[in-house]
């Protein structure tokens, strides 16, 4: 009896000792998105549970990317955890720059991670970054304006219908624009949207031999459709609008429809920030009847750079931040609509979450995205709104500027495509394809 007690006490003491002896301070680089800011605010919960402290380096997306890429390629070792996306993870994982996350404990339930997310963050079946939240893209639309236009949004619309509705909803005199789409140059901005949309139009970045395809009619159709639609029914200055700008336009009630990341759904339905919170409907991203929808797949994930001295503490943090418990913690404090979406299957089976208006459409969008088979014609790359090769960010950044200039009317669609074709060919040659 006594011995048992003593043993128990000893174990408890040794556990505490182990816990406190290994208390560390980990440095985490993250993006200044709402869900991450919330995570930052909940750090105390993590510290209370594990004894580890956290230093946050919160940066705007472009600066973050530049910062973590420099650090990982030079093995600078400044961060113990980096917030990265579905584009970086497979490339870095393949280079051996990330610590594999294949030994997470059973209670973490790694199999609960949505298969699409898991697939996009793994190399050869090994997980290299755990999804903090995941997203696809979908249509968010104003139910009142749609009604006013005498139309009804189907669950799975075509581009033809969306364009018709956009033109019908537009009322420029009153500052209502039928459709808000990304136009700001950047591989993660307009090119994410256009690449995904081009898939629905049957276009592709490269053929099986890595030849650029911007000289093909499908791209011309995509870009012309987009430019014409935005000219007729888009907001002014659309070529400077990225995710943030469109979000604020929609929240201010200036957009009839907005096709963008599913995570935006919780922002546009939040009455604190959005003037149209109770008038938003959701639908799948449009198609053109060719068998692919223009909805992408993305995850913001937490990865551990190889070479950090604090792998164990970093793993503990990732387990905490991407766990089911974390979701419950946020739900308890901020409500179910504000939990990080799109990462775990169990979230969508939770009865509490079923009442959230955008839950079903978000899940359907994520499930219908297939990064390994993104286009109508076969392609040699993986990824829907990007091609997971190291050169893509650089090339798409430049192509995005040409397309933005076409949207702004500073050059024709043909000119933009010709330049895109030339520079992509050039860069791919330089990279040795």
């Amino acid at each position: 009896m006594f011995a048992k007690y003593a043993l128990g006490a000893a174990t408890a003491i040794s556990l505490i000792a182990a816990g406190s002896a290994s208390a560390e301070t980990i440095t985490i680089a993250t993006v200044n998105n709402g869900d991450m800011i919330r995570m930052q605010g909940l750090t105390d919960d993590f510290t209370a549970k594990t004894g580890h402290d956290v230093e946050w380096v919160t940066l705007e997306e472009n600066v973050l990317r530049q910062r973590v890429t420099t650090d990982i390629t030079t093995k600078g070792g400044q961060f113990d955890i980096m917030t990265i996306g579905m584009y970086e993870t497979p490339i870095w994982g393949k280079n051996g720059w990330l610590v594999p996350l294949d030994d997470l404990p059973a209670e973490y339930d790694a199999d609960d991670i949505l298969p699409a997310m898991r697939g996009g963050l793994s190399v050869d079946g090994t997980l290299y970054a755990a999804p903090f939240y995941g997203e696809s893209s979908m249509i968010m639309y104003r139910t009142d304006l749609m009604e006013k236009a005498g139309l009804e949004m189907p669950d799975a619309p075509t581009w033809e219908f969306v364009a018709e509705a956009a033109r019908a909803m537009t009322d420029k005199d009153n500052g209502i624009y039928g459709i808000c789409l990304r136009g700001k140059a950047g591989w993660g901005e307009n090119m994410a949207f256009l690449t995904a949309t081009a898939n629905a139009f049957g276009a592709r970045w490269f053929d099986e031999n890595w030849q650029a395809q911007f000289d093909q009619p499908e791209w011309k159709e995509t870009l012309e459709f987009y430019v014409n639609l935005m000219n007729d029914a888009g907001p002014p200055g659309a070529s400077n609008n990225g995710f943030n700008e469109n979000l604020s336009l929609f929240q201010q009630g200036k957009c009839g429809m907005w096709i963008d990341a599913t995570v935006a759904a919780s922002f546009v339905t939040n009455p604190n920030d959005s003037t149209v919170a109770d008038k938003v409907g959701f639908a799948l991203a449009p198609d053109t009847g060719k068998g692919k929808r223009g909805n992408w797949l993305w995850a913001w994930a937490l990865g551990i750079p190889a070479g950090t001295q604090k792998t164990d503490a970093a793993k503990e943090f990732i387990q905490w931040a991407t766990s089911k418990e974390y979701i419950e913690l946020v739900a308890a404090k901020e409500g179910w609509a504000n939990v990080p979406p799109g990462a775990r299957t169990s979230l969508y089976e939770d009865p509490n979450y079923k009442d959230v208006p955008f839950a079903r459409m978000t899940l359907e969008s994520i499930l219908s995205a297939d990064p390994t088979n993104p286009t109508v014609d076969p392609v040699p790359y993986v990824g829907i709104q990007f091609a997971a090769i190291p050169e893509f960010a650089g090339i798409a950044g430049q192509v995005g500027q040409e397309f933005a200039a076409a949207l702004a009317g500073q050059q024709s669609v043909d000119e933009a495509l010709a330049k895109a074709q030339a520079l992509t060919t050039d860069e791919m040659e330089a990279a040795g394809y």
Partner: protein
Amino acid sequence: MATQHSQPADRLTMAPPAPKPASQPAAADHQSGTKHARTAARLMMAPAVILLLGWMLVPLTMTLYFSFKKFLPLRGGDLGWVGFDNYVRFVSSSAFWPSVQATLVIVGGVLAITVVLGVLLAILLNQPMWGRGVVRILVIAPFFVMPTVSALVWKNMFMDPVNGLLAHVWRAFGAEPLVWLTEASTQSIILIVSWQWLPFAMLILLTAIQSLDSEQLEAAEMDGAPPVKRFAYITLPHLSRAITVVVLIQTIFLLSIFAEIFVTTQGAFGTKTLTYLIFQRVLESQNIGLGSAGGVYAIILANIVAIFLMRIVGKNLDA
């Protein structure tokens, strides 16, 4: 005034390259002092010169080294020597010449605006008025604002076509708001950067104007010379040296502006300067070799501009 006189004289005595010690008895005393001073002078200059030499040579050597390599961090790093491939590729890219042009247009535009407005503002602030100290504070304030912040403020709160203040002004006059960063992208950047640098130009020019002999101006006024003539024949020549300084210093800073573009257009719509192009090559494309070659071109461009400046305005710096 005494300095002006003694310095060139001093310099003249030391001008002959071959050291001819104490050939002039009259100067013997001075010479020995100078000799001692010169040794000390070298020692005193050494830390600054050595440090800057290091700061120049180490990065320059490394840049040159990388520029002859195929160096792709995401594809395994060092992929061997490639000779002048990177140099050829950098220039033959369709973005190269437009970027040189954008650089020159932005630098030139900002220089023109800051110098012209700086002169006018300096003249204005030199006039008698009430509350000059406060006005001066208001005018120099933009110089204290970090480039990132000023770009963010201009982009979001002024140039935004929907919520920007300028859009409200346009609409108040019944006009369609200008989409600044698209329709007038280069001009917008010039505006933002000029706003930041105008105080600097104004300050230097103001100090110069204050040193202007007011009797000369009054005499000219008595003679009935109109203001424009007084400005053209007295004030402007007096300011030439200050203008030179403004142009020289600002050029050095303007050639490397980055934050203003990064925050606003990210190089789209013809605002991709050479610095920004290099940034894209290094950080977006992760092509260190190509970016390094671009860095070497940027140094060459900077030096061409510098030599050009010296030729045109450099003589003002003597005296």
